């Protein structure tokens, strides 16, 4: 059987805060193996949608499916377990843990070792622990942080902290990796290397969802994107189509 090309299907998601409709009737679909971006002016509802998709908020209406499985209303930890991993706009690492421990925490939901196994040091627990640290080491290598493995996360440079967040999210073996403004605060050099990292991740078969303010980065990297404004989707498609859409230009620049 051929796999469905659609990985994530979002239908009619609505979310209000008090009287404010942060999202109304947003529908979109993300295909397997693509980089999908979400852009829009400040306050357009990008982060709200992102938080709905990662389980921080429950949507007031609508639903979304990952590989056909209904996801709306699940807790964040269940989202991660089902295959949606995320990073945070304002970096949220476990700052007093070492770099490698941060990644090892990401393996939590894919491993099972419990209290008894840990106390008795059973061979299964030890084997699992070994596989956790091997996988973490591999992922650090993958994002280029292997030489900092035993540094405390808080002592990493800003760009490296962002990379570590990505490695930690990858450790949960996501189907969809959701990145909340990964290039925020990066210098052009760091942005370039982030771009190539994202392309490597995509090449390795993980679908990416990206919220980004850096329009140049978005246009250069994503396969398709959606534009939100005032909680509604105003455009969707390939970068070249969206960039010339008058509604989008109006949303960003105002009516002339």
């Amino acid at each position: 059987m051929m796999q469905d090309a659609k990985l994530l299907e979002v239908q009619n998601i609505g979310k209000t805060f008090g009287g404010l409709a942060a999202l109304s009737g947003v529908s979109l679909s993300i295909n397997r193996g693509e980089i999908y971006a979400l852009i829009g002016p400040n306050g357009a509802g990008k982060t709200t949608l992102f938080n709905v998709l990662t389980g921080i908020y429950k949507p007031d209406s609508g639903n979304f499916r990952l590989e056909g499985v209904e996801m709306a209303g699940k807790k964040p930890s269940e989202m991660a377990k089902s295959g949606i991993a995320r990073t945070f706009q304002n970096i949220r690492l476990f700052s007093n843990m070492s770099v490698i421990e941060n990644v090892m925490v990401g393996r939590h939901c894919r491993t099972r070792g419990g209290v008894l196994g840990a106390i008795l040091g059973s061979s299964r627990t030890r084997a699992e622990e070994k596989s956790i640290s091997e996988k973490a080491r591999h992922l650090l290598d993958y994002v280029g942080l292997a030489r900092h493995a035993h540094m405390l996360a808080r002592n990493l440079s800003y760009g490296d902290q962002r990379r570590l967040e990505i490695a930690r999210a990858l450790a949960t073996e996501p189907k969809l990796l959701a990145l909340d403004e990964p290039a925020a605060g990066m210098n052009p050099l760091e942005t370039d290397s982030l771009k190539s990292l994202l392309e490597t991740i995509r090449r390795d078969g993980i679908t990416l969802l990206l919220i980004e303010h850096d329009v140049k980065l978005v246009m250069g990297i994503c396969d398709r994107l959606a534009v939100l404004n005032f909680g509604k989707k105003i455009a969707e498609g390939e970068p070249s189509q969206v960039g010339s859409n008058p509604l989008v230009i109006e949303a960003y620049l105002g009516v002339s």
Partner: protein
Amino acid sequence: MKKALKRGLYAVLLALLPFATGMAFGKTWVRILDFALLYVMLALGLNIVVGFAGLLDLGYVAFFAVGAYCYALLASPHFGLHLPFWLILPIGAFAAGIFGMLLGAPTLRLRGDYLAIVTLGFGEIIRIFLNNLDTPYNITGGPQGIDMIDPIRLGSFSLNQPTSHTVYSYYFLFLFFALATAFVSMRLQHSRIGRAWAAIREDEIAAEAMGINTRNVKLLAFAMGASFGGLSGGLFAGFEGFVSPESFTLMESIMILSMVVLGGMGHIRGVIFGAVLLSILPEALRYVGPIEQSLFGKIVVDPSSLRMLLFGLALILVMLLRPAGLWPSPARKRELLAHGETAKHENTNIYDAGR
């Protein structure tokens, strides 16, 4: 080889310690050592909740009480039950674990100060229950407590016989359990569960987003910590032969928390050090009275008030001078060191720029 030698040396030292202490200072001090070992167990238990998972608990003594009363009710003439200790200790630890979850469940959403207030209330509730459950049915013996509790027996050998050896035999029993709790703590800290606790301590939202079921993992921390408390409570009841609500006041909770904080939160050796230090130092101050008497011919400052004064002063000084505790974990030390290195690096860079 070297490690084995070092371990053997420690074992010999720990085995000789009570006899040396008994000969040098008398049996009272061996008894103080016994209590120090009980406090080590309690501090290690609280360290799981406070040090590993970062949840402030001011009512920890309640679990100690649960374990102690479990033992008292199941092995005394009070109900006429006389179960063996190897059965009661697990029951007490398990019961305390259940109480730990009962406390944990409603406080899952609370953090910091609010959690501290609720746990403080919980500790008091348990004590007040114990104090008042003598009517209409006499369950806990009320303020009089329960006495004539069976001593701990290994087979047909009672640890209370002959009486002159009691403090020594309990020393070795407590030492065994203290080492076991330290071992379990260590194994837990470096496990998948221990990492999940640390992640919650560092950033709960990020931990949840990484697939950690924070509710279950927190409840597990409460239950594990509480069961250590219940275990040492059972040992305490068997040792003392008498329990009453007076032994389980808020002051005890604060004392145990101070041991954890003073020693070095989250660092097992530091916590053990803190527990030993804080259970022995106040006893040493008892000698201040006679010294004053001989120096000035009268008691100038009451030693018992001096104890609290010095205790408070020591805590303030430690928090000011060594905020991570007297013996912080290597990770914390690394943290401070790394800061120093970064600062040095930055300074030299600024200097370079100046040139």
